[in-house]
């Protein structure tokens, strides 16, 4: 006699799936609660933390924006190893607008968001026809190349970067700005994913020739998601520049590229909630581990390894399965 795990959709999931025929508060709550967790968590619970932790949360949100932007590209089959390109471009653009032209954050951030998205899409346009690892390699190289370019030509403050950038008028403005931006990007992308437009994007990942012979210009669609992902990343950079009052070469650092991917791997790829969750685990965890001093990075690395090996599907998909399904062991006859 062997045994296998049987998974059955919970009744409340079956009833509330697809066609919404809800007939009790319990079913309404079943659907609404998970969808409201990010809103309540980010806008209500996060502000309750101490000032120190609020700073950690702000930097978490910046990484989460990059992770959500990474996931959008992943959905369209574009693997980005260079989210720092978006961050760096956004940071320098907002920084330059503020330092050279004196534009306040109210103007510099929106301009850097749109401009940064356009610039990133333009820079990646020539390699858009590449797929998989080839596209990934170019995205990895571009930010490193730009960092060396700034260093060598000494434009935009050279190695010292742009300092003395205006900060936000208050800590609360800064805090809620990034939280609202994260929620807009998160729910906006989720909405996009569910639309016919999102279906085409996923189709490009699945089978680009089939989409082409459906009369859809896949290069134009890829350009559009590059712009969207770039704009969200550039917002993170522009925000970061004003928050840190600094824009410089560290903006192109590998941290901004690797952490979003690690967040997606830990949280679960294939949904926008996964990378968001992943970012909110990894960044605070790295702060907590500071107490360990020099061993910090060892434990951090071990956690990553255990998370990816233990839950290869990602934490979000694991939790979601537990939420939606009943599991039980059943006896099976072994032939």
């Amino acid at each position, binding site marked *: 006699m062997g045994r296998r795990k049987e998974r059955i959709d919970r009744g409340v999931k079956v009833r509330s799936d697809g066609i919404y025929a809800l007939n009790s508060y319990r079913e309404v709550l079943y659907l609404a609660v998970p969808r409201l967790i990010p809103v309540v968590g980010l806008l209500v619970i996060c502000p309750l933390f101490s000032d120190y932790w609020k700073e950690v949360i702000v930097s978490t949100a910046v990484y989460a924006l990059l992770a959500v932007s990474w996931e959008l590209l992943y959905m369209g089959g574009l693997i980005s190893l260079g989210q720092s390109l978006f961050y760096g471009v956004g940071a320098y653009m907002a920084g330059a607008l503020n330092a050279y032209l004196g534009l306040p954050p109210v103007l510099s951030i929106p301009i850097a968001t749109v401009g940064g998205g356009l610039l990133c899409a333009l820079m990646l346009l020539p390699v858009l026809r590449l797929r998989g690892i080839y596209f990934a390699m170019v995205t990895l190289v571009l930010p490193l190349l730009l960092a060396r370019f700034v260093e060598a030509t000494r434009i935009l403050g050279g190695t010292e970067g742009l300092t003395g950038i205006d900060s936000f008028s208050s800590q609360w403005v800064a805090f809620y700005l990034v939280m609202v931006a994260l929620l807009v990007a998160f729910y906006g992308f989720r909405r996009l994913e569910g639309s016919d437009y999102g279906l085409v994007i996923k189709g490009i990942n699945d089978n680009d020739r089939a*989409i082409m012979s*459906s009369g*859809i210009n896949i290069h134009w669609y890829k350009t559009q998601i590059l712009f969207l992902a770039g704009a969200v990343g550039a917002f993170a950079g522009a925000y970061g520049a004003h928050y840190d009052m600094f824009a410089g070469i560290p903006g192109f650092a590998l941290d901004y590229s690797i952490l979003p991917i690690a967040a997606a791997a830990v949280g679960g790829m294939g949904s926008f909630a996964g990378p968001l969750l992943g970012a909110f685990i990894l960044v605070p965890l790295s702060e907590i581990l500071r107490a360990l001093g020099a061993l910090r990075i060892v434990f951090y690395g071990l956690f990553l390894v255990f998370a990816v090996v233990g839950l290869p599907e990602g934490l979000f998909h694991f939790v979601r399965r537990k939420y939606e399904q009943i599991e039980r062991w059943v006896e099976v006859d072994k032939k």
Partner: protein
Amino acid sequence: MSAALLTVTGVSKHFGGVVAVDGVSFELKAGEIIGIIGPNGSGKTTLVNIITGFIRPDRGKVVFKGEDITGKPPYHITDVGIARTFQMIRPLYQLPAYKNLIPSLFSPRVRRLVGGKYGDRDAVAMDILEEVGFERDSSVPYKSARNLPHGYLKRLELGRCIALRPEVIILDELFSGMSIAEVTSTVPIIEKLRDEDIAIIMIEHRLRELFQITDHVLVFNFGRKIAEGTPEAVMNDPEVREAYLGSEDVGEEEIAC
């Protein structure tokens, strides 16, 4: 006779030293079905790839309704009205069957012709799937393409074409891998499309079914068009018999198998 919808003139393509397609010309009129037959490797699929823009020909021209579409990208060629199925099926495996039609219904061509909103497209997709033989009230249209039998996926390809409201449909070995029953139920769908004045090119190895539908056949061998005409005329052509069988003394029944 009405003017030709699609004109292919002297199209050639070499892959290294191999001549895949060698100076092929033919014309296709609205409401006409042309069958293309020939041994494996005779350049049939390469010709389709040239017409639909996946391969750029070395020489020759493809003209559709007076517009030179030679070497244009595939999405442009679909956009002007030429839809195709793939011999190696290309469904979107992640998605349910009916969602596989959404990209086609969302394409600029269809939105230009009929418009359509988000929810409407699902309903239209279901109608088209029913047309190509998916049981509407069953779970089949909702099943993930990954879990569908091959015959359904073939018809899903046909549905994807129909969704585009094309003027020319190119069916690349649609019947291969289908059961006899599936072929029998698909033939009337193709005849109905022809009656709606859609021009159809069928590449087929299932000759008996093909000859039921069309009386205009092109025969390919080594990239060249070696014969054109009615099935009887073509099958009695000595060059065709040699291409298919390597000898002359075999009856038509065996060819058809």
